[in-house]
């Protein structure tokens, strides 16, 4: 059964390499995008942490900034 599945009437090498290439591309794109996201999120948290209390209060008045900080602490 396993041999049949892998051999695929002699086309296994073509079929499995096409599927493997697709899944590898998916994994690479997902990882690259995730790393970019985390990098920007960490940059945001670091910048926010360096603000004085008045500026931090003003920045926190924006809902999106609060959301970014909340997500960063959840991750």
């Amino acid at each position, binding site marked *: 059964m396993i041999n049949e599945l892998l051999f695929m009437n002699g086309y296994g090498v073509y079929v499995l390499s*096409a599927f493997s290439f697709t899944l590898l591309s998916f994994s690479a794109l997902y990882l690259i995008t995730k790393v970019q996201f985390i990098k920007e999120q960490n940059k945001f948290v670091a910048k926010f942490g360096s603000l004085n209390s008045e500026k931090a209060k003003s920045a926190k008045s924006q809902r999106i900034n609060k959301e970014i900080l909340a997500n960063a602490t959840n991750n």
Partner: protein
Amino acid sequence: MFKLFHPNRIFQITSKAPKYILFLFVIVLSVGLTEALILSPEDYKQSDAVRIMYVHVPAAWISLGIFSSITFLSISGFIFKNKNFFLISKSLAPSGFVFNIIALITGAIWGKPTWGTWWAWDARITSMLILALFYAMYLISWRIYENEEKVFKVTTFITILGIVNVPIIKYSVDWWNTLHQPASINILSKSSIHPSMLFPLLIMTAAFALFSLLIFLMKYNTELIKIKNKGLDRL
């Protein structure tokens, strides 16, 4: 109406959605792979080589769909002076490009056992390669131009030029005598593909669409945070 699409409003949804989309993608992909590799029948002519269709065709469809969406959004962004449309386009492009490359590579792998060659300068294959070049130009433009107005103009121009190629890709198999087979699935007329092969193809298309949505959301959130980082610098 465009206020509904304001980043501040939609970040609440886009920041939470990826984990649910990823979960759904894994489930749909697992079902799709089982159908495509195990349960679907082999073709009477191509035998098991036909299974490559389940990754090749959805990748080609989605790369064409994404490029068309990018063009529509870029032109709309230009007409309505809405930056968010450009941001959405920019976030869609990486997955469109990767799907285009997958379609080309899996097409080459499929070509070897069925046509006896990895590559042919056939109208369909060449026009898909040209689409990949337009995707590359689009993505490079976002990297090289600093000025926002300029990058909006250049990327819109690239998409307008590139969209001319999309109907050429679609109809190349009808207009020219190509090595590539004509379409087996038609929305307006009867499809020549058997339901036992159509079902896994549609499942795999759904999985690929979910993956492009996942990458789009992650990329879009990254772009929004980048903008907010610049905003913190100005405080």
